[in-house]
């Protein structure tokens, strides 16, 4: 491998973002255009990773390995497998769209905004590529800085409260994980390499301590009930681009953390803690959905629906079977697409009406028919209508959950019904009913906005009608992950190497 593809993916947006600083502050148009170009190039750079990806192996691909801090055996180690490859593409796409949606809505400190956005993109890419736990932590925490600024500087009226809450919640969780990482390092042969850390026989007690230490960080990020309370505030107050990134990528990292670290490194603890995790997931599904019904704020409603949907994701992950895991990962992508799209749409409408109160809306279907069409599609995808991507993910998760513990699937299915209730009711209140006076004369979507929403529509149907395009990436890696969790991988390493038949 001559070109370090993953390093390029990480550092191209960071350097590109910093290069924006050279442009004089007043030339807003140039800055916006440059930011868009950088994000588009980044998106194109992701394509080779997808096209050259070998779906038949669970091994890390596009690996890079350089010693970084020799004194502590820390390496700059990158690599992707079937679980992470899709997130790279999702991240790149979401950033392109967030730049498009911020085109006119960000009016002050434009330069800083796009720098923060692109630096954030680099850090997010790093999170999904890192195969060294220390390096992962660096990227994981580094994300906080730009996100803190994005919510705090360009957010809504209560942005400062929201951003500080977001920062402190995630920081406390991450710091506990840091202690866990150090503990793991001491017991795992003084290495941070996650491939070496996995498959070592740790005592159950140690695994349980580590599991909860990691849980602190990942559950806050997901967010799982009951540590979800930062999310509604952060989602509501963030600018449209911030909400899209939060919903699209950032909260996926919690679930990704479970997949990458908790499950393979701590298989026994995962098995032990299965029931509490499933219960928390089910509570999140139902609780999030019921809370949605009581919301008066548009963005807050979608935020709570994220809590509910992420409950599905964790349900799928902790079902610990092929269907559940694949469904969970697919649902992460789906949720990124659908909720991302919803936040994009809300950002567009907010730009026109400057209110997020649901009661202020009414009759938009006649004033903005194209917008209503898009929104209907996203609503149906969020509800999980067959033919859209939401259906596939939720169906797989329910299958997986049913195989593990039938009652979890039964209760979780009620979340679907509630989901249909609050989403369709929301749609009714905004788009139907009589036209409110303040809603007259709204401008229909322009070409830029339609182009922003169109990729999401294509993805919704593409994944909905041909899910194997994505699931194909997952099969082998998820199968291997399951072997690790079920102890097969561990037993394999204990065998005499010569006895293992070549795959």
């Amino acid at each position, binding site marked *: 491998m001559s070109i370090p593809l993953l390093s390029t993916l990480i550092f191209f947006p960071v350097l590109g973002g910093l290069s924006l600083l050279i442009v004089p502050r007043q030339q807003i148009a140039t800055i916006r255009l440059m930011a868009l170009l950088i994000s588009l190039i980044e998106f194109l750079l992701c394509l080779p990773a997808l096209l050259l990806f070998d779906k038949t192996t669970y091994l890390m691909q596009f690996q890079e390995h350089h010693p*970084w801090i020799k004194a502590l055996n820390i390496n700059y180690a990158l690599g992707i497998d079937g679980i992470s490859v899709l997130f790279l593409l999702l991240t790149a796409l979401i950033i392109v769209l967030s730049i498009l949606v911020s085109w006119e809505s960000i009016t002050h400190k434009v330069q800083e905004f796009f720098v923060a956005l692109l630096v954030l993109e680099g850090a997010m890419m790093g999170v999904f590529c890192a195969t060294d736990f220390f390096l992962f932590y660096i990227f994981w925490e580094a994300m906080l800085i730009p996100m*803190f600024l994005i919510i705090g500087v360009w957010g809504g009226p209560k942005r*400062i409260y929201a951003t*500080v809450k977001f920062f402190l919640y995630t920081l406390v969780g991450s*710091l506990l994980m840091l202690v866990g990482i150090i503990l793991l390092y*001491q017991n795992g042969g003084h290495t941070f390499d996650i491939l070496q850390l996995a498959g070592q026989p740790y005592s159950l007690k140690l695994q349980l301590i580590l599991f909860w230490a990691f849980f602190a960080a990942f559950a806050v990020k997901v967010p799982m009930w009951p540590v979800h309370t930062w999310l509604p505030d952060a989602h509501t107050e963030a600018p449209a681009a911030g909400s899209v990134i939060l919903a699209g990528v950032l909260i996926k990292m919690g679930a990704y953390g479970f997949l990458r670290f908790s499950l393979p490194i701590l298989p026994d603890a995962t098995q032990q803690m299965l029931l509490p995790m499933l219960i928390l997931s089910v509570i999140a599904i139902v609780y999030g959905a019921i809370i949605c019904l009581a919301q008066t704020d548009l963005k807050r409603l979608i935020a709570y629906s994220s809590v509910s949907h992420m409950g599905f994701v964790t349900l799928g992950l902790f079902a610990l079977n092929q269907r559940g895991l694949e469904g969970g990962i697919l649902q992460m992508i789906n949720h990124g697409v659908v909720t991302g799209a919803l936040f994009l749409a809300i950002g567009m409408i907010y730009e026109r009406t400057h209110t997020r109160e649901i009661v202020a809306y009414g009759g938009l279907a006649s004033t903005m028919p194209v917008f209503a069409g898009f929104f209907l599609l996203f609503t149906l995808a969020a509800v999980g209508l067959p033919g859209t991507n939401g259906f596939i993910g939720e169906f797989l998760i329910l299958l997986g959950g049913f195989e593990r513990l039938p009652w979890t699937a039964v209760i979780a299915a009620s979340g679907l019904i509630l989901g249909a209730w609050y989403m369709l009711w929301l749609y009714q209140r905004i788009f139907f009913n009589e036209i409110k006076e303040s809603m007259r004369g709204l401008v229909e979507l322009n070409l830029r906005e339609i182009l922003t929403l169109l990729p999401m529509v294509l993805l919704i149907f593409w994944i909905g009608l041909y899910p194997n395009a994505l699931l194909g990436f997952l099969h082998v890696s998820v199968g291997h992950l399951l072997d690790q969790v079920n102890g097969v991988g561990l037993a394999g390493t204990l065998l005499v190497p010569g006895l293992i038949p070549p795959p």
Partner: protein
Amino acid sequence: MIPTVAINWAVVEPILPELLLIGIGVLLIGLDIFVPRQRQVLPWLTVVGCLTTLAMVVGSRPSVAFGGMFLVDGYAIVFKSTCLAGVILTTLMSEHFCRIIGLRQGEYYSLMVFSAVGMLMMASAGDLMVLYLGLELMALPIYALVGLHKTEQRTSEAAIKYFLMGSFASALLLFGMSLLYGLTGTTDIARIAELIATLHLGNNPALMAALALLIAGFCFKVAVAPFHLWTPDVYEGAPTVITAFMSVSPKVAGFAIFGRLLFLGLPELHEHWGPVLAVLALLTMAVGNITALCQRSLKRMLAYSAIAHAGYALLGLLAGTAEGLAATMTYLIIYLFMNMGAFGILMLLATPDQPHESLDDCKGLASRHPLAAAMMLVFLFSLTGIPPTGGFIGKFYLLKAAFSAGYTLTVIGAVLFSAISAYFYLRVVRYMYMSESQQTISCSFSPGMTAALGLCLLGVLGFGFFPGPLLDWTTAALAGM
């Protein structure tokens, strides 16, 4: 007639850096008295002198001089370099700040240089006498520096308070040292360790008393709770540039003797001082971080944050391992850059008629001066310990060292307090980026200030991205001990 003995100049070689600095200090006084019009050369002479000394220190060969009283080992070299770097950064910032507040005494620079000589001696002390000599030589000029700005009322109060408290701490130290001497009959630190081991003094009550007195004395010097009470007032009262200096170099030198005495002299007693320091460290982090939460003055907030950071730095000492000591040294070096940087930005805000030290004064700094705000952002995130800044690397290394030594609960406490600290550091970021400016003060960069801030930024980010050489350096420095 007294027979003349030829002086053996080779003996002097280990203390050449100190001698050079003394020469510079005397030269500075002379220049100030006889060429008063050329005062602008003083800071540059100081910088050049310190840089030369730094080069000599880094290049010096490990040796033991004056019968074990003066040690030039890796440990001493690291601490000496850190102290000198602190002096250099302070001097670079001084020219700008002293002009703004109208501090015109030429003694300023020579006092700083003499204080630096004291610090170098402390770092090299292999004997209780040298240790105390260095300590006093460091402290006396600083008492004067704190009170140098005579037109400001608070400074006199701060100077007197600092002097009284400092003398009291020295008295405690002396008492502890005399007990040690009484028990062992020697002031040689390495010899004390041997005697404690051979005479089985491990549980001697007098030795415990000596240990308690010594720890109390050192804790005064490095501002560890509950011996920190002088710090906020003195830090707030002193001219900001001196506050920056005091929060870094003397503290580093204090840690140098702290570590030297505990690791070289009293390693037998680790089971006693380890837990005590763990409690003190936690208490310090608690006091520093929680009190900082409710400060309205940025300067006072940074003073409390400096207290909290002394608590973090203790984590390495209390581990009682070489790794821990290396972690403390690493942390102090990184702390030097981030703390000086934060104080540097505070100095930028000052104007001749108003010090502009409150939190409100940094409101809207991002609009007024984006570059200064961005730098402050980096320093504050580093003080919080967020990657990819150096502060994270330093804190990680400390936590790891304390964790390996078995202080799990202390580590968890440290982690939680560092999450609390995020709140007040972030508040400054919030004010800079998320509030509208109340006044339109324009910040002006002088060349010295630019250089100093540039170096700080380079240090914080450089050690954040490439900490390898630093860790190797501090670890290698301990190889001989």
